[in-house]
């Protein structure tokens, strides 16, 4: 019979409130570690490659990419969807668990939200640069203009996408920052230097922790949590309509919105796991990000992996069941077999097969294994986007327009650059921002742990 165990303490090590503050702000107070400088040097190098590739694209035009009339969307859209997917889970994680009152979120939500903000920033680069004349990107804003005034096409999923991504970036950044205000105040009041007190004082907006402030803080966090939960579902559904509202075989399916949302949560949770393992290891925060936290994320990943497997199977089944020869061709001759079959099978193995090993408790408690699996999932999700974008476009209804696609160094360079930009953001986050929500962690400390000390 199933036996429920009482959940252990969320925070280990018999901490008191003061210890929590000290532990979490220690990385901000301590000297910059050597590994951080090395990681930053690598990230800056990667970002520089990206910036040069972006410059090259703007200077010489989109002809420097391998996209063509048939495969009009290449690595740029793959990477856009990939980054948005990763960015998605930060909010999903933080907000769904907030609404469900899952207290174990408190150790992880801050890093997840940070990841969202940096990932969405990286994602935004791709559609902007894909416009070709990036300096005219402001044309997409719906404002009274001198071109008629000609309004944008409000019925276009691509415009919905623009609105959704911009709103998502603004909302997730606000949610993230507003959550940090009480923690900035804690750093301000513990600061040893005047400069630090001034900087964190400015960031803390004069927070004091009075009941008047906490009441509104709680009210705002539930309002934002409630409405942003809708956004988590809508943003990636909108991204999926970029594909699903077209008539391209392999894209034109009602499965896409839930498939994309779940896929996004899958890759994002995997990235959250990667980040939390790094934070735990390098900042010795094992008492806050405990094995049970990683265990909980791993269980979610196994479950979501099953949904992914079901989605992949459903797509193939529907291609056969629909009796549509174009769908049949796309799935059976251009995905399961054919020149891009590696991408399809790599996607299935990375996303639907390998994560199943996390059914085993032994694997879930092995940090190295979890770290490797989390990276494999993100790789698998990249393969998934390649599989969707390139296979459908490369061979459409007209065999005369069939073509193959492999990226140029410029496209690869931009992708590498966004990885650098993302890691620069994450490294700054590690160094200057409390990685764990101090006030929220204090609120989940069990009263018994405090009273035992007196």
């Amino acid at each position: 019979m199933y036996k429920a165990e009482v959940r252990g303490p969320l925070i280990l090590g018999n901490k008191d409130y003061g210890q929590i503050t000290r532990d979490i702000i220690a990385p901000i107070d301590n000297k910059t570690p050597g590994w951080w400088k090395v990681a930053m040097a690598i990230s800056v190098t990667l970002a520089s490659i990206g910036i040069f590739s972006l410059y090259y694209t703007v200077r010489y035009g989109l002809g420097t990419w391998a996209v063509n009339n048939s495969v009009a969307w290449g690595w740029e859209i793959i990477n856009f969807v990939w980054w948005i997917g990763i960015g998605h889970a930060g909010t999903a994680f933080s907000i769904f668990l907030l609404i469900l009152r899952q207290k174990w979120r408190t150790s992880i939500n801050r890093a997840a939200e940070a990841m969202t903000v940096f990932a969405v920033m990286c994602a935004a680069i791709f559609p902007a640069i894909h416009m070709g004349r990036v300096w005219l990107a402001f044309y997409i804003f719906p404002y009274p203009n001198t071109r008629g005034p000609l309004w944008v096409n409000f019925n276009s999923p691509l415009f919905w996408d623009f609105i959704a991504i911009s709103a998502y970036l603004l909302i997730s950044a606000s949610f993230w920052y507003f959550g940090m205000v009480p923690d900035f105040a804690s750093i301000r009041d513990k600061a040893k230097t005047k400069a630090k007190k001034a900087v964190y004082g400015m960031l803390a907006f004069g927070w004091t922790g009075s009941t008047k402030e906490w009441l509104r803080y709680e009210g705002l966090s539930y309002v934002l949590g409630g409405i942003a939960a809708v956004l988590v579902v809508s943003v990636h559904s909108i991204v999926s309509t970029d594909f699903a509202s077209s008539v391209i075989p392999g894209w034109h399916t009602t499965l896409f919105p839930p498939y994309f949302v779940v896929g996004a949560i899958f890759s994002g949770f995997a990235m959250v796991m990667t980040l939390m393992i790094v934070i735990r290891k390098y900042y010795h925060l094992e008492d806050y990000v405990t094995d049970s936290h990683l265990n909980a994320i791993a269980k979610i990943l196994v479950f979501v992996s099953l949904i992914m497997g079901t989605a992949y199977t459903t797509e193939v089944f529907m291609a056969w069941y629909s009796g549509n020869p174009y769908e049949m061709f796309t799935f059976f001759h251009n995905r399961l077999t054919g020149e891009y079959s590696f991408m399809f099978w790599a996607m299935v193995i990375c996303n639907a097969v390998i994560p199943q090993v996390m059914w085993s408790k032994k694997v879930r408690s092995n940090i190295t294994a979890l770290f490797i699996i989390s990276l494999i999932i993100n790789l698998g999700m990249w393969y998934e986007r390649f599989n969707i974008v390139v296979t459908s476009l490369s061979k459409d209804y007209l065999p005369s327009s069939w073509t193959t696609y492999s990226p140029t160094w410029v496209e690869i360079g931009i992708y590498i650059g966004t990885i650098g930009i993302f890691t620069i953001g994450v490294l700054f986050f590690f160094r200057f921002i409390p990685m764990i929500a101090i006030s929220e962690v204090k609120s989940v400390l069990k009263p018994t742990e405090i009273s035992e000390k007196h």
Partner: protein
Amino acid sequence: MNTTHIIGVFDSKSDLLAGIESAKSKNITIDEIYTPYPVMEAIDAMGRKSRFTTAAFIYGFAAVVGVLSFLYYTSVIDWPINYGGKPTNAFPSFIIITLVLTILSITILSLFTFSVRAKIYPGKKYILPDERSTDDKFIILFDKKTAGAGFEAISAALKANGASEVYEKEV
């Protein structure tokens, strides 16, 4: 202008709540409570209520009306465009933009409301009676003029209920 305040310092939430109870039972008026994390019982004890959800609903309603009107104006009145014979007032395809912009409006307006009501904004000159309250202490603040009891009485009441420290300070 600074006035003399009496400050009770507590180490834990349970002690704080006992301190609040004892002050209330003795009809001592609490000026404010400062805690390192949100303590709902302390907020209730101060008799504070928030109408945030009502405000958010009003913002949302206004945003829905505003965005739909804007889309109707641009797509039907100002510059109607024929996309393959589809109706210019394409209501179903307006829903997504309306949803997203409504959420954005609620977020931005709620943040402003929070800033105004909680008086939290960049460069604010704040008064924090005891800096330890953002770290590990729970603070009850009494205004000596309006508390309704003297330092000795308040100190005795709080200390009997677990206050680790009670002192006077100009705040």
